[in-house]
Structures are given as structure tokens and as C-alpha cells.
């Protein structure tokens, strides 16, 4: 049995890797094949995949996950400032520090479940956000955000490289981490992260998490201590968020407290739910869709709309543009909110859940008569 599922995993991973690495090709018809957006796809994909390990598998809804994103970013930028512009240490620091934070916050928050857990994580997130803005200004640089300076220490770089003119760029042993190289760096990490999430889901550990989701009390009665499992899941998903935060800093080396605000935490919840919580590919899909809409919809304005509908007669054109314009440009959040409500109301399983449901119905239709006969007998 194991060999079969391993084969299936291998096939899935091959298809997935190909799809991710070829994104610049197959996304170009959608107008989304530019490095900035592709990087965002990969980064928020990692974030959502990690969030799904917690929410999708265990059902614990954290409303403060953006804290780990912020911590990852800060850790990465500090690594750039203090040690080297190489991205490897930055990513490692981001993951480690967010892991520590997740251990602390998780240790306290996981004492409660349900909505109390959500509120506790939210409370910690707001505390971190408020402190980052006020007292922790020496570390976070407050409202301005943490940025690179010309006279930063960069201890390791200083040993090997002459300081050049202007701000140094983030690099991977000399390869500049902007544009496509940056995307491929994020994409490789996304593939690794996806593989780990797949392994987590199919492991005994993942099974235990799913059991916690279905009935935690019963797990307790059977003598199963769920606490360490929950804490590990929380830490793993926090580290994914930290990785995503570090990558945000890698592609654009600055970090601000607004990354930790609770609306940012809400965004990753939206991504996961939109795609389908608990499924592997769903959160990625959700992250991609939201970032795509964010970039595409928000770039439209009235004049572009008038152009797009220029084939209509003038009067019609005005009416159509008037109807659509509140939903694009600055108003794309309206589209997002409405879309999100529709998904929750009609497709509780998200897009992937909806497709699976549809598929099962189509397949079942052929078998339905026999089933009915069986019931009558």
C-alpha cells in the first residue's frame, strides 16, 4: 500500500513542480506572468499552505497568523543588516524566529479551543502589532518600517566584498534576488514546502491532527494527549508563515508592522477558505486567485473599462461601466468580500471542495439506480 501512495505522491509532486516552475509560461495569457506577481503567488502560496496545516487539518482557526509573517520579515531584514545580503541566512533566521514566536503564542493559546482560541491568537497578534508600532521602535523602526541603510554593519559581507556604491541587493551567492531569479528561489521553496505539507498530511502525525479535528474529546478519552501534536502543528504552520515573511523581505528588503495587522491575518484565512480548507491544492489556488485579482482588478479604472467595452454602443457602454466600476480599481475589496461570502454560503468546501462535489455527483449519477434498488430491498 505504501509503495502505491508513494508513487502517487511522486506523480503529484512532478506535476506540481512542473506547474509551478512553468508559471511564467502558462500564466502569460492571463497577463499575470511578470516577476513581481509571480513572486507573490509563490510567497502567499507558502503562507496559505502553512496556514492550512493548522486550520485545514485540525480545525483551529487562528486569527493572528500574520504575526509570524511579520516576525519572519523583521528577522530577515535584520539578517541583511547585521550579517550578509545572502538570502540563505535570512530565510533560516526568519523560520527560526517565527518558530520561537509560534511556540510561545501556541503554548498559551492552545489551552483553549474554538472561538476562544481565535480570540487568544487575535489578542496576541494585536499586542505584537501595537508593540511593534510603539515601544519596540528600536527593533522595528515603527511606522517608517525597517529598511536597509548604506552604513549597516553587514559583518560577513564586510569580510569578503568591498562595499559598493549605493545599497547592496539581496543575492544568493552573487545571483541577484529580484525579477525571475527571485521568483525561482521562492518557487523552489514553495515546492519543498508543498512536499513537506503533503508528507505531513499523509503521515501518522497528520492522521492524529485530523482525528483532533473530528473529535478532540474522544481522543482525550482514549488516552491520547493531543497537546504536543497541536503545538507542533501550530509551530510548523508558524514557520511556514515566517518563511513567507522572510521571502517577502528577500524580494523587497523592508518590513513594516502593517504586515502583522489582523486584517492581514484575515487575508490568509480568506485565501485558505476560498480555495478549500483541508485540501492540499486549495489554499494555493486561493492565494493565487486573491493576489491575481488584487493586481489585475485594482489596476482597472474607468477609462480602461470604457476601452474594454468600447464595442458596445455608447449608452450601453456607460451603463455597463457604471455597474462594474465600483467592483474594480480601489473597490476590488468589494469584489473580494462578495466573492468570499458567496463561497462560504454556497461552497463551504471552497473551490476545490465544490469541484470535488460536482465530480462525485457526475460519477454517482451513473451508479444511482443500483443504489436506489439496494435501498428498496
Amino acid at each position, binding site marked *: 500500500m505504501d509503495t502505491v501512495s508513494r508513487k502517487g505522491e511522486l506523480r503529484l509532486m512532478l506535476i506540481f513542480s512542473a506547474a509551478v516552475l512553468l508559471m511564467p509560461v502558462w500564466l502569460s495569457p492571463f497577463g499575470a506572468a511578470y516577476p513581481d506577481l509571480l513572486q507573490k503567488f509563490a510567497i502567499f502560496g507558502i503562507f496559505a499552505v502553512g496556514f492550512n496545516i493548522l486550520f485545514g487539518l485540525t*480545525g483551529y*482557526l487562528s486569527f493572528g497568523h500574520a504575526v509570524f509573517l511579520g516576525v519572519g520579515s523583521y528577522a530577515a531584514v535584520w539578517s541583511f543588516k547585521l550579517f550578509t545580503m545572502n538570502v540563505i541566512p535570512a530565510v533560516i533566521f526568519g523560520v527560526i524566529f517565527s518558530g520561537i514566536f509560534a511556540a510561545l503564542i501556541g503554548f*498559551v493559546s492552545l*489551552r*483553549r*479551543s*474554538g*472561538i*476562544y482560541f*481565535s*480570540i*487568544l491568537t*487575535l*489578542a*496576541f497578534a*494585536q*499586542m505584537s502589532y*501595537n*508593540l511593534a*508600532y*510603539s*515601544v*519596540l521602535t528600536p527593533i522595528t523602526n515603527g511606522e517608517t518600517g525597517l529598511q536597509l541603510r548604506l552604513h549597516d554593519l553587514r559583518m560577513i559581507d564586510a569580510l569578503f566584498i568591498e562595499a559598493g556604491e549605493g545599497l547592496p541587493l539581496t543575492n544568493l551567492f552573487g545571483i541577484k534576488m529580484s525579477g525571475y531569479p527571485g521568483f525561482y528561489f521562492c518557487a523552489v521553496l514553495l515546492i519543498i514546502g508543498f512536499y513537506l505539507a503533503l508528507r505531513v498530511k499523509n503521515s501518522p502525525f497528520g492522521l492524529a491532527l485530523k482525528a483532533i479535528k473530528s473529535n478532540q474529546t474522544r481522543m482525550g478519552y482514549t488516552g491520547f494527549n493531543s497537546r504536543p501534536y497541536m503545538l507542533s502543528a501550530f509551530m510548523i504552520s508558524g514557520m511556514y508563515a515566517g518563511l513567507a515573511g522572510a521571502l517577502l523581505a528577500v524580494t523587497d528588503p523592508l518590513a513594516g508592522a502593517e504586515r502583522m495587522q*489582523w*486584517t492581514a491575518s*484575515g487575508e490568509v*484565512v480568506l485565501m485558505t*477558505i476560498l480555495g478549500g480548507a483541508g485540501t492540499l491544492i486549495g489554499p494555493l489556488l486561493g492565494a493565487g486567485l486573491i493576489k491575481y485579482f488584487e493586481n489585475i482588478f485594482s489596476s482597472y479604472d474607468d477609462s480602461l473599462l470604457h476601452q474594454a467595452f468600447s464595442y458596445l454602443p455608447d449608452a450601453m457602454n456607460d451603463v455597463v461601466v457604471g455597474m462594474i466600476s*465600483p467592483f474594480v480599481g*480601489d*473597490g476590488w*475589496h*468589494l469584489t*473580494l*468580500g*462578495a466573492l*468570499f*461570502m458567496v463561497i*462560504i*454560503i454556497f461552497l*463551504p468546501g471552497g473551490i476545490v471542495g465544490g469541484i470535488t462535489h460536482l465530480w462525485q455527483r457526475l460519477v454517482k449519477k451513473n451508479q444511482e439506480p443500483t443504489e436506489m434498488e439496494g435501498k428498496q430491498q
Partner: protein
Amino acid sequence: MDAIFLQILNGLDKGGAYALIALGLTLVFGTLGVVNFAHGAVFMLGAFCAVTTQHLLTFSKKVKDEGITFFDAYKEVPYLEIWWGETGSFIIDYKVPFSILLAVPVMLLIGLAMERGLIRFFYNRPHADQILVTFGLAIVIQEIVKSIYGANPIPVPAPEIVSGSANIGILLGLGDSVVYPWWRLIYLANALVVIAAVFSFLKFTTYGMVVRAGMQDRETVGLLGINIQHRFTVVFGLASIVVGIAGAMYTPILSPDYHMGMDFLVLSFVVVVVGGMGSLEGAVLAGFMLGVLQSFAAMNEVKAVFPGIDQIIVYLVAVIILLTRPRGLMGRKGVMED
């Protein structure tokens, strides 16, 4: 001493707003069992009722300015002043109190529409789904308001006569150094009146008694032949009115913008949880308590000892209470247990 007195007043004032929002939230949760993340947005809608009243009352006409004779100058004069002169400007001055007249029916309608149109489909769905769909609704409401009124805060001043500060020190015999803005005092009084009204509605009317009975045991009340669902829907409308009034009256203190609700929502959820989910008294108590704690934490003397405490005190208290008293301060047994 004076400083402490002022901070208590400050805290009660802030606490009044928290308590009103949390009261509405708890009413909805205690009756319908729905966690309503759109409540903050409803608060914001209440505030925008005041903005709308201001717009409506100051609907103006361009009139030639007779004071300037060198060239043709025009000024905007509200129709109300043209029609009714002094009385008109009096009404315009008192727009915030008058806005309650608009807020009550509008908020009732919005509440009923929300409950019938969306919330009722979510009674039996998991709490996570309720949170998420109302969160989506909150985003939609915010964006609609933003597209109508723009993204900038819109100032709505209080009536001229109460725009200054009250010298309450002299009234209470504490010396002249204790002054406090009139409108904040009015807000506190208003909060107390609304809270008292809600509680007496629930305690002293038959309707309220049935609602309370339904909160205890919905099924039995239903078996007695009472349409409890209908009453709970009305309670949802009532909760919207309460939070709407809280929003409308808050406008002179904080110029409303489209995302003011989100800021209050997080805080008021913390208040509800600290007070105990489903406990009305707990929500009010926790609202005032957190308000007072927050304003004490903002004192310079306290900040010197614990830097940054003013930013986190509310959340810190919430964490401690949740860990030591799992049901919150006054939560009942069996409500939202793990």
C-alpha cells in the same frame, strides 16, 4: 487625585462605547447563537447615519453673497436656513442628537434585513463559518460606504453649546483644574441610558421575559407555542439599534471613516469574551472595566514603569482572564464550552 478622577471618567467614557457594542454582540450571540463579525460594520453604519443626517440637513443652495459688493460672490446656504431662518440653523446645529431619529429606524431595517437575508441560514453552521461569512459581509459593507462617502474621515461636530469643556471640578468641589469635554459626559450618560433601557426591556416587559426564557431554553419556549424565532429576529434588530446609536453619538468624538468599525470590532470581541460569552451583565461590566484599565494604563506614571503597557493592556487582561476563568467573568455554564 484629580488626574486619577479624570482617568476614571475617561475610562468610563471609553468603556461606555465598548459596553454598548459588546452588549449588541452579546444579545445576538445569546439569542441566536451566532458570532457576528459584521457588528463593527453596523457600528460604523450608525456613525454614517449621523453623517447622512448632516448631509441632508445642510443640503444647500447657492445664494449671492450680499456682503461682498466688488464682484459677484456666491455662498452656500442650507435650504433649512432659507425656509425657517433661526429654527433651521438650530436644527442643523443639533444634527447629532437628531441623527438618532434617523438611526433608529434605519438600523432596525438593516438589522432585520441582515438577519432574514443572511444570518438565519447560518444558525446551524459551525462558528467558524459564521465568523467568516460575517467577516465577508463586513468587508462588503465597508466598501459600499467607502464608495459612497470616500475614504477620508468626515467631521461631524457636536452642538455649539456643548462643544466646550465642563468645569466639573467646581460642581463636585474638586477645584478648577478638573475639566472635561461636555460631549464625552453626554456620551457616557447616553450609554448608561441605553444600557438601562435594554436591561429594563428584558427584565420588566413580557416580551423581554419571553426572550430571556428563550435564551435559557429555546426548545421549551417553542413547545409552549411561542414563535421564539420571530422574537429573536426582533432582538437582532434591537442589537443593531443599540450599536447604531452608539455609532451615531460617537461621531463628535471620532470623525467617522469607513474602517472605524474594524478597530472597534476587535476590542469589543475581547470585551465580550472577557465578560463571558452570552452574559449581558458581563459584557457591560467588562466594557467599563477594560475602558478604565485602558485609560489608567495610558497615564505617564504607569507608562514609565511598564513601557508600552497602554498598547497591550486590554489584550493582556483578556489573555489572563481567558486562561484563569475559562468562561470569562460572568459566563454561564454550558455556553460555548470547549
